[in-house]
């Protein structure tokens, strides 16, 4: 019987819900492991799970400096999509969507993946051309892109301002029907429980303070809970990448940390049943199952590790939201927060062996890390286990910058605030 099922729910209800096991243990760190994963966010936990499940490597510790799910896995706007232009990105993110489609079954944990679609609104003929080109690229790469006319948009999303007098009139939109949203906390908890049941030690409140080395080779870490050794040390710390690499003596790296804000409104009745993005600026919005509108926009645009942003960006996001959906103008904002994004120099991630012997690195997710969680964990685990990349992460090297082989979706160059 699966640990979580209708039958186990009934059985535990009859015994007063006293027999549920904690979703993961709270083990003391052992002196050594086969693999240490620094960072207990979505990517680190997914990596641990796939290491155990796909490669049989279960002597693994995940070290998390705070509590599980306290970083970007609990701070994003929960969107899952693969509407990319470049073949490397389409291949990677489409693989991720396919893993998402079976994730709740695979983990025996309801991650509430809802393929409600994502609609990118286009506001000029040039933008429509660009979106149609992207839709064609998606279809060519095996994905799904559908062009919608304003009449079709009116039927699908009645709240959008489609009037000719709108500040940015809508000329059409690119729909990816298989995209959607997922419950972000459940993704962390689901991967954590599944990894734990396979023998992985998840160690919270354990901050890495340095690296143990033998010559150049990394052979473990020092932490707030003592020295822990491992043959392989994998790093998946998102916005803290430069900070952690500095502990290993790497002072310069193609990453800038930026703050991205997100928002949720008070709950309203069902209003929006897909994810919609605004092409006249940068805004993405969906409605959660609790009824709140969940939305976010651009980066604040300056280096930050603060996990909070400033007001000009808040005003800009609200302005765009009201331009797109005039009906929400009088809604009250319930909460806002910020997360620290590891902005890479071409807007694409880095999943690779190195840069030091014994080290493996997963970073540069910009603000698209959540949707990538399953594929990132899958391909990073592959890279750690086999010492070579999987086909889907082979292009996402660190050396691509030096070789001029950047994967720059937006074509804006090494200016992280624009990606």
């Amino acid at each position: 019987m699966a640990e979580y099922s209708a039958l186990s729910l009934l059985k535990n209800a009859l015994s007063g819900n006293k027999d549920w096991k904690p979703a993961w243990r709270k083990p003391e760190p052992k002196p050594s492991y086969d693999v240490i994963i620094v960072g207990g966010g979505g990517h680190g936990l997914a990596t641990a799970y796939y290491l155990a499940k796909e490669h049989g490597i279960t002597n693994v510790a995940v070290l998390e400096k705070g509590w599980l799910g306290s970083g970007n896995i609990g701070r994003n706007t929960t969107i899952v999509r693969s509407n990319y232009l470049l073949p490397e990105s389409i291949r990677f993110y489409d693989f991720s969507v396919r893993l998402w489609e079976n994730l709740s079954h695979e983990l025996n944990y309801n991650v509430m993946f809802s393929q409600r679609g994502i609609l990118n609104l286009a506001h000029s003929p040039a933008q429509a051309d660009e979106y149609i080109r992207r839709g064609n690229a998606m279809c060519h790469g095996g994905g799904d892109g559908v062009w919608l006319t304003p009449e079709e948009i009116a039927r699908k999303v009645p709240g959008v301002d489609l009037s000719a007098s709108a500040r940015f009139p809508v000329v059409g939109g690119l729909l990816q029907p298989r995209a959607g949203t997922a419950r972000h906390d459940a993704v962390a908890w689901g991967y954590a429980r599944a990894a734990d049941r396979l023998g992985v030690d998840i160690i919270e409140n354990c901050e890495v303070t340095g690296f143990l080395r033998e010559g150049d080779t990394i052979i473990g870490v020092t932490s707030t809970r003592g020295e822990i050794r491992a043959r392989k040390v994998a790093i998946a710390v998102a916005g803290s990448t430069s900070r952690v690499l500095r502990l290993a003596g790497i002072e310069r790296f193609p990453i800038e940390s930026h703050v991205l804000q997100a928002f949720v409104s008070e709950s309203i009745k069902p209003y929006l049943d897909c994810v919609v993005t605004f092409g006249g600026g940068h805004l993405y919005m969906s409605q959660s199952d609790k009824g709140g509108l969940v939305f976010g926009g651009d980066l604040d645009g300056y280096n930050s590790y603060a996990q909070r942003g400033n007001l000009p960006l808040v005003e800009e996001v609200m302005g765009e939201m009201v331009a797109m959906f005039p009906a929400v103008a009088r809604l009250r904002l319930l909460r806002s927060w910020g997360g620290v994004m590891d902005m890479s120099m071409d807007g694409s991630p880095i999943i690779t062996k190195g840069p030091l012997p014994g080290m493996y690195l997963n970073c540069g997710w910009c603000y698209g890390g959540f949707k990538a969680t399953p594929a990132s964990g899958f391909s990073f685990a592959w890279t750690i286990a086999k010492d070579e990349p999987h086909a889907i992460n082979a292009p996402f090297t660190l050396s691509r910058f030096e070789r001029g082989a950047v994967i720059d979706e937006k074509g804006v160059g090494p200016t992280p605030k624009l990606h």
Partner: protein
Amino acid sequence: MLIPCPHCGPRDLAEFSYQGDATRVRPDPASTDMKAWYDYVYNRPNPSGPHREYWQHSGGCRAHLVVVRDTLSHEIISVAFAHAGLNTAEGRQ
């Protein structure tokens, strides 16, 4: 976040444009050292703590500024004109 522009006084963040790390040094344009160019174009120290960075007061006096700002707290530690000569009274003459 208020940035105290040395010309206009404390002004709202919305008036300024961010132009990134001010510690980067461009290699000699004649240099063919690819490592040096790679390091200049792509690598950043990205510190958590004081960060020396360029801002332009694009919605005000349009001066280019060098700001030292704490990336953990957003506290502004110092502000000066990017053109070093403008930082003295004689230089501004």
